[in-house]
């Protein structure tokens, strides 16, 4: 449990600093750091167990169907990374408290920071690789929030977006890789996977797994060619850079490569891809770092270069190289975090990070200068700093590695990179702190408050201690982490400052000399660099991103250009093509069922439908005729429903036809009465061919389906409707009982749709469009008689009769054709009739209920009916029914579904009326309506 808590504490605790911000900055920082400390203490309680070579684990099933378990474990490697995440996290919290200005939302910042911390801890402590992916993507998301913390600056937003696009994109590749890995290994638990090294390396999927996992690692750890996002992420506030880009996020890729080292490493491919990428990254980034002027940018490229070193070491595949990598991970985190914080101090106190405007700060900011000098010494690898030790180990390993059969190739490249590394480190230090004191700093520089210089000073002290007494301060943790990474006992090694005159030391001294010399030639070299035409990674990224956007836009515009004709054409074409492919691949046998004799009247009905369709196609320019013929088709459909024994459907169809017609006529008022008369072209012939083909295939499909015997689920409903649902009308019982949950969803949709129509039309009446609407006239002459007497009388007489019919249909619905939906349509039509005959104003005045309330009330009643069954201990929407004997009336069935049906009724009435009344209100506002 405690292991899961290590991860969960920061995630859950993220709210505290945000809440404590109301009390003040200190309280918020204390809240954030207490969460971190608590988590750290919990972590350290596991040290004893780990040193006894046991692995504390905790596991709960989360989504067992896909093998996703919330399982965590702490071994040496996880411990090392978790300590770094929490330890440096603590220092960064203190630093950020003093770094961020009072105007910046410190509480929000700490909340993001803790979120990120929790996500990182999840990555390093997850046992399940799917869970690891979840946390991996969480780090991408939370780092997006952190990098874009200054959301008012364009660089902040762009940098954050780029980091997200690259790292989250890599995360997708990683997900695929992990899925493959889990399938091949037969388990998604790391502790199991790590035992299956042989099986995975010999699997045919090995190369795919390797490629996908490495894309994930390389994007996260900013390896060439994905390195470009890291310098742009420097738009983040400096504490973020110190945290994310030194110790944690960028190390996640290195962590994963170390984690999977036992199963993936050891092949030629691994060596060339990983070590090769590492060397290239190391060299390129070191060169670029030399020609950067922004302090943070120099450090960013330096970080990329050091990440390259680590990647290269992992790639060597030798056990000692892994030890060196682990040790360098520790050292790099320490000195790079200190340097970032130091760069932040310079920025904070002088007002600029531009190295060309700095220099001579040593006498003005002595404390900062000392920490910077020591940290930079560690970065270059000067004894007795910790960086020296791991650099020597790295060089030692490089001298043993042979690439493409050339012994000097790797050492040569690494030497070259080291020379540049020395040069940019010296430049960073000398050009900032040494040289003549200037008098044009943007602000008056002085040493910062204790809160700012103490965190980096702590790190520098640690760097010296590890440098002087490596075995005591870092020996055991390096050994533990290496054992865990290798999944076996690591080779014997002894960390010490002095190794004797080894080739590695010679290389170091040589590189130092060359680097210093190179820096003295900086000015002429820089002018050549400035003139050189270099590819710009950001430019390429933007270019490809824009190309993607353009492609998406073109595709969308071409297929959905606003023309219904085009959309229908594409849709029908795609549907028939898919159908054609499926049909071509399967066989067809004639159906066995007997055909039914055709009845004369039905034949006439069939003729009516066909002719109506032809008239529609022929006369479609006149919209009124088109509408009329569609109505005829609807009428025949309802008759067909009756003929085929579906009276419920017939009732619904008849009512829906009327409502639809009114809706269409209301809308048609605003449309041109005649459609544009198109010139007959090849397109029309094409469309005719296509539509005939589709019509024929749908007809054939129906024929094929109906002539074959098939088992439908209707028999189940017919059998169980009376005993289970208590109703003889199967259709209604299905609607309100068997599939009540569907109906509940549908009435919700009806309500939402009506509200959306209302909102849209209301916007037209009150928004900028209303001016156009007020001026609009149809330009036609109309009859002066608005409300003919006969119509008014007939509709008013009809109203109570229609309501009576609605009541009748509603009440008998459970046992005979009818129900809430049909009754609602009947009532709506009866009401609309009044609007039509007596005018909107007259009817609106007399309607004493609010349609919105009707929709909401209906939904509420239906929901309460459903929840009622939960209260009684049954699943949602379980119905109950009972027969009660009333005096005089007789036996009456009381069913809970009647209440549900009432909810349906109210929502539908409200929805239909809201839509129609508002649409008709639109017509009143026009120029015609005003007359």
């Amino acid at each position, binding site marked *: 449990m405690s292991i899961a808590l290590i991860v969960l504490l920061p995630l859950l605790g993220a709210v505290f600093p945000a809440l404590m911000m109301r009390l003040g900055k200190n309280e918020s920082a204390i809240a954030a750091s207490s969460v971190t400390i608590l988590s750290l203490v919990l972590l350290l309680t596991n040290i004893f167990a780990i040193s006894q070579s046991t692995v504390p684990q905790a596991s709960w099933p989360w989504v067992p169907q896909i093998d996703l378990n919330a399982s965590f474990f702490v071994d040496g490697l996880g411990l090392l990374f978790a300590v770094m995440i929490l330890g440096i996290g603590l220092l960064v919290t203190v630093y950020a408290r003093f770094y961020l200005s009072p105007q910046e939302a410190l509480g929000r910042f700490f909340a993001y920071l803790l979120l990120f911390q929790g996500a990182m801890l999840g990555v390093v402590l997850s046992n399940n690789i799917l869970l690891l992916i979840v946390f991996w993507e969480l780090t991408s998301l939370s780092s997006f929030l952190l990098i874009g913390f200054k959301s008012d600056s364009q660089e902040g937003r762009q940098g954050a977006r780029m980091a997200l696009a690259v790292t989250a994109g890599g995360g997708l590749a990683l997900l695929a890789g992990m899925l493959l890995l889990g399938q091949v290994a037969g388990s998604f638990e790391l502790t199991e996977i790590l035992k299956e090294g042989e099986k995975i390396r010999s699997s045919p999927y090995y190369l795919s797994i390797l490629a996908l996992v490495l894309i994930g690692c390389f994007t996260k750890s900013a390896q060439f060619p994905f390195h470009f996002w890291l310098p742009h992420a420097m738009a983040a506030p400096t504490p973020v850079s110190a945290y994310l880009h030194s110790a944690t996020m960028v190390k996640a890729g290195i962590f994963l490569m170390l984690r999977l080292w036992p199963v993936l490493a050891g092949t030629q491919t691994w060596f060339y891809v990983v070590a090769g990428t590492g060397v290239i990254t190391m060299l390129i980034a070191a060169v670029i770092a030399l020609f950067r002027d922004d302090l943070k940018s120099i450090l960013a490229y330096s970080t990329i270069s050091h990440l390259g070193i680590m990647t290269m070491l992992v790639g060597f595949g030798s056990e000692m190289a892994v030890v060196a990598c682990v040790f360098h991970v520790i050292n790099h985190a320490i000195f790079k975090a200190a340097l970032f914080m130091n760069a932040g101090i310079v920025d904070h106190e002088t007002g600029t990070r531009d190295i060309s405007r700095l220099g001579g700060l040593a006498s003005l900011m002595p404390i900062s200068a000392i920490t910077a000098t020591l940290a930079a010494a560690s970065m270059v690898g000067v004894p007795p700093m910790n960086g020296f030790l791991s650099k020597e180990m790295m060089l030692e390993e490089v001298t043993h590695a042979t690439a493409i059969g050339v012994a000097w190739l790797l050492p040569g490249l690494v030497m070259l990179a080291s020379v540049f590394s020395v040069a940019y480190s010296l430049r960073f230090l000398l050009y900032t702190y040494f040289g003549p004191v200037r008098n044009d700093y943007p602000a008056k520089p002085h040493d910062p408050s204790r809160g700012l210089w103490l965190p980096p000073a702590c790190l520098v002290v640690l760097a010296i201690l590890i440098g002087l007494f490596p075995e005591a301060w870092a020996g055991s943790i390096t050994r533990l982490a290496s054992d865990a990474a290798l999944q076996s006992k690591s080779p014997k090694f002894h960390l010490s400052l002095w190794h004797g005159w080894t080739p590695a030391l010679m290389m170091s001294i040589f590189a130092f000399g060359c680097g210093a010399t190179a820096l003295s030639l900086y000015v002429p070299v820089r002018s050549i660099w400035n003139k050189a035409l270099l590819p710009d990674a950001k430019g390429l990224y933007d270019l490809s991103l824009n190309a993607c956007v353009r492609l998406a836009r073109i595709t969308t515009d071409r297929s959905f250009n606003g023309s219904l004709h085009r959309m229908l054409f594409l849709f029908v074409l795609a549907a028939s093509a898919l159908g054609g492919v499926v049909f071509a691949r399967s066989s067809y046998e004639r159906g066995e069922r007997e055909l039914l004799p055709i009845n004369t009247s039905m034949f006439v009905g069939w*003729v*009516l439908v066909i002719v109506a369709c032809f008239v529609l196609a022929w006369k479609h320019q006149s919209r*009124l005729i088109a509408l009329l013929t569609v109505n005829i088709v609807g009428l025949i459909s309802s*008759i067909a429903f009756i003929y085929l024994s579906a*009276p419920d459907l*017939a009732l619904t169809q008849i009512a829906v036809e009327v409502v639809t017609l009114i809706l269409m006529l209301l809308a048609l008022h605003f449309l041109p009465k005649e459609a544009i008369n198109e010139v007959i072209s090849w397109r029309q012939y094409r469309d005719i061919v296509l539509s005939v083909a589709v019509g024929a295939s749908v007809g054939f499909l129906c024929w094929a389906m109906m002539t074959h015997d098939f088992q439908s689920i209707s028999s189940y409903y017919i059998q169980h409707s009376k005993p289970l649902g208590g109703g003889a009308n199967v259709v209604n019982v299905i609607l309100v009982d068997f599939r009540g949950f569907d109906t509940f969803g549908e009435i919700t949709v009806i309500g939402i749709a009506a509200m959306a129509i209302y909102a849209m039309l209301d916007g037209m009446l009150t928004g900028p469009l209303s001016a156009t609407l007020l001026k609009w006239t149809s330009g036609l002459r109309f009859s002066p008689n608005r409300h003919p007497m006969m119509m008014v009388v007939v509709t008013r007489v009809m109203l109570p009769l229609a309501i009576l*019919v609605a009541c009748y249909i509603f009440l008998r619905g459970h046992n005979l054709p009818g129900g809430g939906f049909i009754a609602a349509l009947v009532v709506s039509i009866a009401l609309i009739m009044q609007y*039509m*005959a007596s005018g909107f104003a007259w009817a609106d005045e007399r309607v004493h209920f609010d349609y919105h309330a009707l929709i909401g009330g209906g939904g509420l009643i239906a929901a309460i009916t459903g929840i009622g069954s939960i209260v009684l201990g049954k699943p949602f929407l379980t119905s109950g029914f009972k027969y009660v004997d009333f005096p005089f009336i007789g036996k009456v069935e009381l069913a809970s579904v009647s209440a549900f049906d009432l909810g349906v009724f109210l929502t539908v009435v409200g929805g239909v009326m809201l839509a129609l009344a508002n649409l008709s209100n639109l*017509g009143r506002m026009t120029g015609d309506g005003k007359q």
Partner: protein
Amino acid sequence: MIGYAVLFGFAAISIALLMNLWRLAMGPTVLDRVLAGDTMVVNMIALIILYGVQRNTTLYFESALLLAMFSFISTIAYCRFLLRGDIIE
């Protein structure tokens, strides 16, 4: 005897429907077509009732009732549309 009467009814209504269809297709004015549609509904009501008589059931009566009650709304709506443009004022 009633069986023959029903059959005769079916035949007569079918012929009537076909004649309605002729008017609907040929027009010549929109009003002709609207009235053709209206008459078609009247014939359909008769058809439903006859079908009920033939099957000896009252199950279809409500459909005929609903058609009778509301089909005239459609016709009125068309007419209002032609006369006034806006069907609800």
